[in-house]
């Protein structure tokens, strides 16, 4: 049981963070297509 739980934790944590990051990046690209560079003062 220990191994299972440890595995669940690591998979859920990094899988979850990875999925959310990917979703965020995808959305960011969609936004970037509509937003001209001057509205992005960090570039």
């Amino acid at each position, binding site marked *: 049981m*220990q191994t299972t739980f440890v595995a669940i*934790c690591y998979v859920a*944590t990094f899988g979850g963070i990875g999925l959310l990051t990917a979703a965020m*990046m995808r959305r*960011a690209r969609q*936004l*970037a297509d509509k*937003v001209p560079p001057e509205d*992005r003062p960090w570039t």
Partner: protein
Amino acid sequence: MSRSVSGGPTSTTFSRALGLATLIGLIWFVAFGLFFSPDDEVQGKGVRILYIHVPTAWLAYLAFLVTAAASAAYMWKRTRSLTWDRIAGASAEVGVLFMGITLLTGSLWGRLSWGTYWVWDSRVTTTTFLFITYVGYLAVRNLGGSHHQRAKRSAIIALLAVLEIPLVHFSVTWWRPLHQGESVASGKLSGLMLFSFFVGMIVFTMLYVWLVLHRQRMLAMEDALDDRGLEDALAARRSEAIDAGATR
């Protein structure tokens, strides 16, 4: 539209460097957390869950502090800027994520160590309370209205939450004091275990900063898009009016 070779539209040299460092750190962390560090004498493999649980808990609390501080920065007239509002929002989102991980890993670890998935002690209850408060804060952020209305409203909620948290902490601690057998440090921590904790703290902190940075920039783009949308709608309305006038 130019795309950078690596990274996306919210990347800068700094964030790319940070992202790379974070990724390397994560691999290192998993290697040590899962493989190179030894099992605990008492807890066995269960201690590996703590390598995630402890850092995410600290960071969730840090994220909350950042949200509160950024909210205060927004409310203070001299430093009022929507950037603070967006940092507050981004930090809260990442905080909710980390807090969810904390609660999940904590529950599973608890099942392994104490036999129960849940315990009504002061630490767990306060953390859960903070989680609910965050969720409420994020809900308030989505109420609509102008960016500044959103910012002011959310800032007030965040600052009220800062007032609440000590009250909740004290009442819950008097209500259910921490039982002795439930402290995290059970027995000795070997060198490699301490190291894994250390790596975990650093890596998750970098991850937090990276996530908030990108999310905050994303929110800036969304706000800019909103503003443009409004301008376009107004311009369209104006040109309609002009056309209507011209064809009369």
